[in-house]
């Protein structure tokens, strides 16, 4: 009745619309984050509208082998006479698309297992954690090469194998952050209310660990993307004739000895996206970690 806190309103009103808030946050972002966001936006745009932007077909033979850069073929042609620029544009779609699907797969499996391990605990936690330890004990690039040579190099097996191996890292982080939430009283309250495991995981824990997981998603995407490119470069990743940046570097690698910088273009495409994503992740982590600079 005479609790003074009841009358006093807390904080500013929340009439500001969500979009305006979003715009404000974006405008206040540091320059690096803006550059990162711009890069990501350009890549998404290129990936979505590849057939409209690209001058030729994805695997169309349009000229001689290893043609130099000229007006017709802006970036020359590759080892079979396909237009490099077209291949780069389609590569955004293939390489990035597969990397995104793989990362999502890794997050769903790893995240679900991690949260469940944290909530249930006991032998289930032990079992999952030890399995993950075993998987992580083997160097992942070598392990994935081994598995790919056993199961074949289809896109599906690529996604499943890299996704599973990366899920181990996601498992670790989601289990660790969930453990911090599980000890909270509101989880105890939910258990005593009679909530089932699914509700506790999805409704009580997930919203509280979303921020670190989202940041991890960005980083993990970079690693998955680099792994796929590395495997493609080694001939075990995305198979021809699908355009892919990793294999494009390999196919044109010889040109570097003739002072032709064509192989650096797909390599740069990989590098720039990785840097862009990292810029955004850094900003996001800084924002959500609650660390404030001293003023």
């Amino acid at each position, binding site marked *: *009745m*005479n*609790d*003074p*806190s*009841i009358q*006093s*309103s*807390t*904080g*500013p009103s*929340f009439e500001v619309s969500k979009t305006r808030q979003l715009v404000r946050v974006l405008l206040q972002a540091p320059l690096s984050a803006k550059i990162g966001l711009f890069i990501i936006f350009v890549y998404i745009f290129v990936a979505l509208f590849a057939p409209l932007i690209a001058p030729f077909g994805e695997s169309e033979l349009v000229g001689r082998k290893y043609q130099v850069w000229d007006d017709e073929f802006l970036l020359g042609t590759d080892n079979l006479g396909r237009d490099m620029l077209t291949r780069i544009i389609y590569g955004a779609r293939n390489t990035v698309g597969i990397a995104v699907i793989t990362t999502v797969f890794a997050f769903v499996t790893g995240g679900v297992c991690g949260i469940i391990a944290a909530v249930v605990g006991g032998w289930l936690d032990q079992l999952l954690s030890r399995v993950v330890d075993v998987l992580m004990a083997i160097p992942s690039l070598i392990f994935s090469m081994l598995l790919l040579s056993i199961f074949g190099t289809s896109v599906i097996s690529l996604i499943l194998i890299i996704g599973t191996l990366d899920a181990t890292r996601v498992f670790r982080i989601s289990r660790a952050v969930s453990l911090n939430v599980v000890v*909270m*009283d*509101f989880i*105890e*309250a939910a*258990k*005593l*209310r*009679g*909530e089932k495991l699914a509700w506790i995981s999805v*409704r*009580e824990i997930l*919203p*509280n660990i979303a921020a670190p997981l989202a940041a991890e998603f960005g980083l993990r995407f970079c690693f998955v993307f680099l792994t796929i490119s590395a495997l493609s470069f080694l001939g075990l990743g995305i198979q021809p004739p699908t355009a892919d940046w990793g294999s494009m570097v390999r196919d044109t690698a010889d040109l570097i000895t003739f002072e032709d910088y064509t192989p650096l273009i797909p390599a740069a495409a990989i590098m720039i996206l990785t840097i862009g994503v990292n810029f955004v992740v850094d900003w996001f982590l800084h924002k959500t970690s609650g660390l*404030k600079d*001293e*003023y």
Partner: protein
Amino acid sequence: MNTESKEVLLEVRNLQIEGFSEDRWHQIVKGVDFTLHRGEVLGLIGESGAGKSTIGVAAMGYAKPGCRINGGSIKFDGIDLVTASDEQKRILRGSRIAYVAQSAAASFNPAHKLIDQFSESLLEHGLGSREQAYADAKALYARIRMPDPDRIGFRYPHQVSGGQLQRAMTAMALSCRPDLIIFDEPTTALDVTTQIEVLATIRDIVEQFNTAAIYITHDLAVVAQMADRIKVLRHGESVEESATRTMLSHPREEYTKSLWAVRSFRKTVAAPQLEPIALVKISDITATYARGGQAVLSEVDFEIHRGETVAVVGESGSGKSTTARVITGLLRPEKGEIVFDGEVLPADYRNRSLHQLQQVQMIYQRPDTAINPRHKIRDILGRPLSLYLGLRGSAREQRLIELMEMIEMNPKQFLDRLPDELSGGQKQRICIARALAANPSFIICDEVTSALDQLVAEGILRLLDQLQQELNLAYMFITHDLATVKAIADRVVVMLQGRIVDQGPTNEIFSPPYHEYTELLLSSVPEMDPDWMDRILAERASKMGMAAADN
């Protein structure tokens, strides 16, 4: 202590401090003045957010991260700390101004021995050798009557009790014989029986070494024992300041009077007519945390009737909260059972039916962690409604509004907010509403007011009492605060080391003849009388003397 003749040590004039939050600078301290003489103790009191701690650390010329001093002057022995260089302030801190924090456990480095931490500032400031520091530490430990003063310093922080740690911290602050010590709520985290020892130590040291002190607390009775003068703060402004006795007997401002009157709340109606059969029967419970380990509860046995409040009191570690864990089914007892409304509850909450879970609700000590920060109030309160009662759509909405009105909060204003946008008292009200949403007949209140300011806590107690009358609820009220117990309980259960040592109706427990331990607890609760501590300490000393003579 007359303050007139002594020289001025610290002079704070028109102090302004601002803090950064929500992308803006907010004024936290709005022009506070005070003067502190050598050997004088100034008590700063106020509710949380009044700026007490901010002013306390500002007296060292320091501002917490995200804060800055943006006006006024802080003159310490002629040096203005606002304009002083970092190096000048570094030399002062530790050697001439020391700080004792609220939680000694969090402030000691767990990796070093107490005595090494004691010596650190002495060595750092080049005021003595390690041997001198060790000898001084032992002398001080003896002075404050620490057990085994020659060797206790060689223990690590986790090897001594909380009260001893807080006293060791007071001794540490004294290592360089500073002119000023700032005590920031040094006893808030301690039990009453331990608190009185720490208070006695602090006062003894301040008098012995003629040290000036700023004593920050929200507990009026404590400040009455410690301070020569009291300054009341609110919203970063000074409300009033005067000598302790004047302040206690003749407060001028309305706000101060309201603070003084807080402890006046008493349950309005006499104990209700009890049904013959208890609603909850805690029957001969023995529990351990590890199978075969030491018992944390031994043969705990009591009853709670419909419409009645039973307070369970005791120091930390006495098994109060463990009893609640057994009742809710989070801890399986070794022996004994919980009978609810005539039926034995399964020992594990996972084996209980939704109906059984619905009947027993819980309100937690810290409302910040008891509600999910990512859920809107609507979802927090709505979930039990749909889970237990199957309410949907407009029926659910209607009930939400009723619940919000029950806890005296405006539904339109609050239902769509997140917990972070609420104050501590409001969050605790939401926790109460969540418990009520299940339509329970029994609610366990675990230290529900101890994290709240007194005025807010008072409001919560009134609300709980009012709801009890309307809904005929039974409460099990776990607390270490005896003032709360007197205010709200019909019956009291006193626990010590996992056993019930005393139980009965409140007025019987709290009137003579007392049980020995109950008397110790009761006599340790500070009273709003500046002479209280002297009296109690003298009484205890004479009793000890008599006991010694008897032998």
